């Protein structure tokens, strides 16, 4: 290989990169500009972040400070009401008790709080964007590349701007989780609405539905199974991201895992990992069973 370089001109052998000083200058300009911007608007950023902080703290305190038996009872009640399945409820009880026995109850509650908040925010943001996207091809083609970037950009990379803008702490972590978890919500809402049978939409038009009536009477109910799949995905992705977000100061199971990596605590790390898996399975099974129950009417009884 070196031999080839002796015949070729130098330009073709080592890549002609822009000189280091240019890169350094660009980096400095952009970074300083960015920091300056953040400093200038710090009040605004704080004002936006404050309600999130309050909500997250409230939920976290509620989960952590309530007696465990109450939290467990509430959880089982919610799981049973959503799934109407004894198996899933029993599995939830076993999983949560095991988590408590190995001493991870409090950390699990912290994680549960942040996953709950980030899922709610992802739904509140994702649903309207998905609806708008489904109504216009132009909006769809504008948003799709953004979602592609959000989903393929390594999560460590967008922790950087989040930290620069919002600093270190729970809320920056929450924002990172939401950014990571919202794309499937948006995509599947859009897809669900676009997949609604055209014949049924035509019937809605023929009876004189306004666009709003069409959305709420026809499109949303028929897109619900797909939207539920989106919510399910969002929950799963939040659970995956809370571990990474522990790097910017999110507590709970993720923080333990990070410590375990740093200190080579093999058993402790895996226990935390399994606790996360247990929560993930509970959320997944409960939300899927709920989604299926909503679709009872599609069961074909008469052939």
């Amino acid at each position, binding site marked *: 290989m070196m031999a080839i370089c002796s015949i070729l001109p130098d330009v073709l052998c080592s890549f002609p990169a822009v000189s280091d000083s240019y890169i350094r200058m660009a980096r400095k300009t952009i970074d300083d500009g960015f920091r300056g911007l953040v400093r200038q608007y710090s009040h605004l950023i704080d004002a936006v972040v404050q309600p999130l902080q309050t909500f997250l703290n409230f939920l976290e305190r509620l989960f952590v400070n309530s007696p465990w038996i109450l939290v467990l009872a509430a959880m089982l009640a919610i799981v049973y009401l959503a799934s109407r399945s004894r198996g899933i409820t029993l599995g939830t009880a076993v999983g949560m008790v095991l988590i408590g026995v190995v001493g991870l109850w409090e950390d699990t509650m912290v994680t549960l709080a942040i996953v709950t908040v980030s899922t709610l925010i992802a739904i509140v943001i994702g649903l309207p964007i998905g609806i708008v996207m489904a109504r216009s091809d132009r909006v769809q083609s504008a948003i799709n590349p953004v979602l592609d970037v959000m989903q393929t950009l390594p999560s460590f990379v967008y922790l950087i701007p989040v930290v620069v803008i919002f600093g270190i702490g729970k809320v920056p972590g929450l924002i990172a989780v939401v950014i990571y978890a919202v794309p499937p919500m948006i995509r599947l809402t859009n897809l669900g609405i676009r997949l609604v049978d055209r014949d049924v939409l035509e019937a809605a038009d023929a*009876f004189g539905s306004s666009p709003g009536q069409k959305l709420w*009477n026809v499109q949303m109910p028929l897109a619900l199974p797909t939207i539920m799949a989106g919510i399910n995905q969002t929950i799963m992705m939040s659970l995956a991201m809370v571990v990474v977000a522990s790097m910017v100061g999110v507590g709970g199971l993720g923080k333990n895992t990070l410590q375990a990596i740093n200190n080579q605590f093999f058993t402790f790390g895996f226990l935390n990992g399994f606790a996360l898996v247990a929560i993930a399975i509970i959320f997944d099974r409960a939300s899927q069973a709920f989604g299926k129950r909503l679709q009872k009417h*599609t069961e074909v009884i008469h052939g």
Partner: protein
Amino acid sequence: MASHGIEIRGLYKIFGPNGKAHVEAVKSGVSKAELNERHAHVLGLKDINIAMPGGCITVVMGLSGSGKSTLIRHINRLIEPTTGEVIYDGKDICRMSPSDLREFRRHKTAMVFQKFALLPHRTVMENTVYGLDIQGVPRSESTRKGQQWIERVGLAGFEKHYPNQLSGGMQQRVGLARALTNDADILLMDEAYSALDPLIRVDMQTVLLELQAELKKTVVFITHDLDEALRLGDKIAILRDGEVIQQGSGQEIVLRPADDYIASFVKEVNRGRVIQVQTVMTPATGAPGGFSLPSGTTLETAAKQMTAAGVSVAQIVGRDGNPIGQLDLTTLISAMVTPVGHEETASIAAE
């Protein structure tokens, strides 16, 4: 509420990004194939002029691709016309504003679809009152009306079922109940019965005819089945490649097909059920009296009654009860089995 007729005048539909630009070309004789090849536009409808009388069933018949479904969608403007007018009660539907159009669809039209197009997440009752929901009628009132029509179409007891739990025929009854509950003057039926099997189809045709005898709505019925067209239609328009090639009563079409295309359809038709006695009768000879049949009786019914009564000649009487001609069994049977030649039909027409 008196029914109003629908008048379609000079309607053109050219599918494609710039349909309007090609209307003149089509008017001056560019064919469908040529338009498609040279300009990548598809000719949907060409110069449609049909008067659909109020309170009657108008059937638009044609094979797939003839433009019949496109045509019916212009009446409630689910498809925008390229040029032309659709007049109902003095107003041009093609020129209505979006909100007027919505009101028109809510209160004046109801539609039944080939693939039923029921809402799968709503029960039979909730589907039936869908149109009233859209109008903002409170459920207490709409369920009362809905219940009445569910019973009328023979679905009592199924109110709480979901469409997926019903057979095709029953689903289309829900579609019909949904349209009727709207209490609209115009009933649009887009191949409403084409997806049903033959026995149920005849059954549903009977339901429609019975209801129509009472309701007297302006019905536009789309079908590809000539037998269905002849059974239901007070007036029939036959479409081919987006053009009306013949319109008139069923009898006119069977007796005087406008071209070979229609003639080939008509050949297979059960003529005894379509042709009426006054069309084939001979001038009255001999004294009045004996067995008599009212004009308007179909040949099949006439044959049945004459053989049952054991007579070979019947006297045909007009609406006022006076004899207008006579018919013997030989003429009757030959009219039922042999297609009437062109010269003969011409002579009948002349009379």
